[in-house]
């Protein structure tokens, strides 16, 4: 009798979005639900296309750096750097060693702030808002430090083709070291909050699993791939910036837990350990930073004239907080850049949502979707959006968060 009831269970469609269930960015999930279980997932993108590559057609390479920074509010070092690296590769520009170290330091500071931001969002999705406030307060310290070093909290505007625009002086180093000490101390606390809490473990262990095979075949990148046991990390795999000089290994969850499950918990482990790793990389950079120039060419008109006479194509890669950023650039001896293609990490992680979400419950959607740390503004960059509203049951973000919070509370009681 019971069995028959299950068979009768109707599969119904459930649309979530375009207001995103994870970060406040638009993406639409179309689920097929049977009871509480997800049986099919489709991802509908394109709600945030801004035409950035198209806009770049009427800009010169130096102007594009500032456009690249505005691809994403969080990864603005990554896109600016990947673009600069591609152009430097084409024009065979030698970047001074000191500039490479400064770029590394700023990129790692960005990773710390991005991972802490994510940790807060993850806590919020699970219903622990006090942890959200704690992690975001902790994040302020690195934002202040970024402001101290670059002049801006978020959009750093420090990249330039052939180097960086600001040096790090001797007087600034004690303040960096103090912030690093603070993070080493607070890391112990964050680790125990996120990794030793039984409720967080209950909500995240065995949830949203991405197998190693799926991570490989779907070309997943960043912490999403590493949490599934694929130690892909551009910083480790290629010699670029100061990463070739510094000794470190890509982080996989087995370093801490001894096993790889590829679930949400493992993705928390990887990101938290990477915060500590970033602190260590910055320490090494400060200790070993060579002296010298910070720019290949100080006069921008001279630089632009050189690029104007350059023909060729090149790629720029960098490990952003969310994974590999990839830029393709072609210069054709004109003032403006001929072709520019941006590929953000979330783009490659979109498909891995599908195996993660299949078979999960509706209340797990927010945390599973958030666990890849999606960044939609990076992924989509072409204009024109209008979505006709279809008559379907639509859950808002608030409904979903409520469901997720209720599940956490249930687990805490039980």
């Amino acid at each position, binding site marked *: 009798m019971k069995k028959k009831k299950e068979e009768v269970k109707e599969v119904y469609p459930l649309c979530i979005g375009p207001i995103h269930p994870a970060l406040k960015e638009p993406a639409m999930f179309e689920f097929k639900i049977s009871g509480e279980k997800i049986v099919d997932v489709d991802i509908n993108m394109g709600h945030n296309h801004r035409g950035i590559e198209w806009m770049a057609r009427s800009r010169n390479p130096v102007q594009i750096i500032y456009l690249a920074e505005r691809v994403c509010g969080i990864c603005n070092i990554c896109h600016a750097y990947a673009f600069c690296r591609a152009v430097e*590769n084409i024009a065979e520009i030698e970047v001074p060693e000191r500039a490479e170290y400064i770029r590394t330091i700023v990129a790692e500071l960005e990773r710390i702030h991005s991972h802490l931001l994510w940790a807060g969002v993850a806590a919020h999705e699970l219903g622990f808002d006090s942890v959200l406030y704690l992690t975001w307060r902790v994040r302020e310290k690195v934002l202040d430090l970024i402001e101290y070093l670059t002049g801006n909290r978020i959009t750093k505007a420090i990249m330039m083709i052939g180097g960086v625009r600001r040096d790090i002086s001797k007087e600034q180093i004690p303040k960096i070291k103090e912030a690093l000490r603070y993070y080493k101390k607070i890391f112990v606390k964050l680790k125990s909050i996120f990794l030793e809490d039984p409720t967080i473990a209950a909500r995240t262990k065995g949830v949203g699993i991405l197998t190693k095979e799926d991570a490989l075949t779907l070309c997943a990148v960043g912490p999403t791939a590493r949490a599934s046991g694929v130690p892909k990390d551009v910083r480790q*795999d290629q010699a670029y910036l100061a990463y070739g000089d510094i000794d470190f290994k890509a982080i996989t969850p087995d370093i801490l837990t001894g096993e790889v499950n590829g679930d949400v918990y493992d993705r928390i482990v990887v990101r938290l350990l990477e915060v500590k790793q970033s602190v260590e990389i910055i320490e090494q950079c400060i200790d070993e930073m060579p002296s010298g120039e910070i720019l290949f060419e100080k006069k921008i008109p001279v630089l632009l004239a050189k690029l104007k006479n350059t023909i060729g194509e*090149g790629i720029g890669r960098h490990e952003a907080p969310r994974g590999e950023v990839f830029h393709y650039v072609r210069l054709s001896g004109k003032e403006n850049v001929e072709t520019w293609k941006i590929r953000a990490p979330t783009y490659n992680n979109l498909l891995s949502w599908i195996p993660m979400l299949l078979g999960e419950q509706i209340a797990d959607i927010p945390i599973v979707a958030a666990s890849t740390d999606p960044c939609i503004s990076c992924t989509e960059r*072409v204009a024109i959006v209008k979505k006709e509203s279809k008559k379907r049951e639509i859950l808002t973000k608030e409904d979903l968060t409520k469901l997720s919070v209720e599940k956490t509370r249930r687990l805490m009681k039980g």
Partner: protein
Amino acid sequence: MEKEGKNKKENNVMTPKEIITYFKDKFKKGIKNVKIEKKTAGVKKNEFVVLWMEIDRKIFKNAVKELAKIQFPHLAVISGDDIEKEIKLNYHFSLYYAKRLEEISINFSVKLPKNNPSIETITDIIPGALITEREIQEMLGVKIKNIPDKRRMFLSNEFPKSVYPWRKDEKGINDKLINKLYMRK
């Protein structure tokens, strides 16, 4: 047994030159414009290598299959370029990833004539290529043969058909489609 074989393959890392001769021996004239780009970084001047190869459309899929035989490649993205009478697609792969300083970037480019811009899908070899193939299809008007999902990826359904934003010819974005906000009264 199978595991052993895999390990053997992993230890047997090919150098960039070996990779190029491997492809040249296999496909002879199908491989053109080979370029090895070497760059150094940092104080220790460690090296990393980027390979570029232009591959004939007829043998393109076989070339990707051969690449996958060396190791399952990581596909970063497919970028596309409108160069007058042709459309050039660049497949940005990499091999030997996930190992300290061993990764090699490999870029396969393929030129498609504009009167018949079509190419076989590679999603049967690399399932992760689906999104980028869908993007190439809608942005450049390249027909991807046997693609498992034909829908648009980023463009909305209201976006006019046979307009391809990455094209620079008459099929690209025309003036009518551009909303010049600064000209509004």
